[in-house]
């Protein structure tokens, strides 16, 4: 299978690998998994008082597409408000990385991780969860 150059680039030079202390109150943590393949992905956001994401980190145990998806997601999250971040869609990741159909679930995983991290942060802070997250489920 031919992977796009962007996937390979993110896989070889993943951005923002690592973790924040999940007990800090300005940190939101999302831990999600893909039962189809057993991949696990942790994505964390650091948020300032204005509700803007100042930094993001991830650690993913999974295939190249899962790593690239989460790497790209952390890049995109920085500087976004929680509302903007909550509106990020996996389809944008699919487009940017040119993911093949059988790897689309990797981008879904990244979207799930973003949402889980925002929810975790909002619950911790006692602030309202962005509207686009409560619409589903």
């Amino acid at each position, binding site marked *: 299978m031919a992977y796009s150059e962007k996937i390979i680039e993110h896989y070889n030079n993943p951005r923002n690998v690592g973790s924040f202390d999940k007990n800090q109150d300005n940190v939101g943590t999302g*831990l999600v998994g*893909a*039962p189809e393949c*057993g991949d696990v992905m942790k994505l964390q956001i650091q948020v300032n008082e204005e509700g803007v994401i100042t930094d993001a980190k991830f650690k993913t*145990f999974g295939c190249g597409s899962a790593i690239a998806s989460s790497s790209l997601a952390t890049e995109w999250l920085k500087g976004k408000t929680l509302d903007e971040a909550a509106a990020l869609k996996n389809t944008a990741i699919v487009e940017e990385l040119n993911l093949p159909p059988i790897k689309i679930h990797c981008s879904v995983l990244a979207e799930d991780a973003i949402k889980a991290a925002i929810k975790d942060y909002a619950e911790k802070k006692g602030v309202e969860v962005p509207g686009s997250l409560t619409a589903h489920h």
Partner: protein
Amino acid sequence: MAAPSSSRALAAPSIYTPAVQDAEALHFEKGALRPLPSPPPDHFAVFGLPQRLRISTEAVRDLYLDLSRRTHPDYFATADEAAREESLHRASTLNNAWKALRDPVRRAEYFLSLLAPHIESNKQAVPPSLLEEMFGIQEAGEDLREARLSGDGSRLDAAEKKAAGLRGEVTEAREALYRTLFEQFGRVDELLDAGEDSGSGAVQEALKEMRLTLDRMNYLRTVLRNLR
């Protein structure tokens, strides 16, 4: 066919063996290969089995080997082109069916694709504690790989010890899940044997449970692979 009642606490589950005559009639006609019907038989029917989860893999393997020998393309090397093609095609039909049925996890996945294709893996159904555990084990595997590269003997010893302990735990958890899976096989088969429709609520509920067990097994298989 209902499982026979037994005086023992746990009734011995009925385990299906191939109906050899049915398989014979499906594959041969007067000693020659009979073309497969259209639509083609499912993987169970290829071996004269009903759509059930508890099957005797030994008996299926014996039949698979027997049919494979007798339909082998070598026997048809001098036959006409249609027969040669038929035999080639039959070899792959038999191989695919055996591959799908021999392993319980694959068999369960195939069974779900036949009887409940709409049941999807449910990410929400796996408890967060399991994910945290999986993540921790993955990190131990990463430590182990880094320790190997570090050239630091005591660090490697510690990482290997930890990995060995985790491997033991995961293996045990996996065995427990296999036992759960076999129990669920029994539940599904019993419902079907009792005449429940495969689309009925009870059967679909039992299949959902089975899906969850398979999902958990996927996580464990992946972490085990990364703990080497």
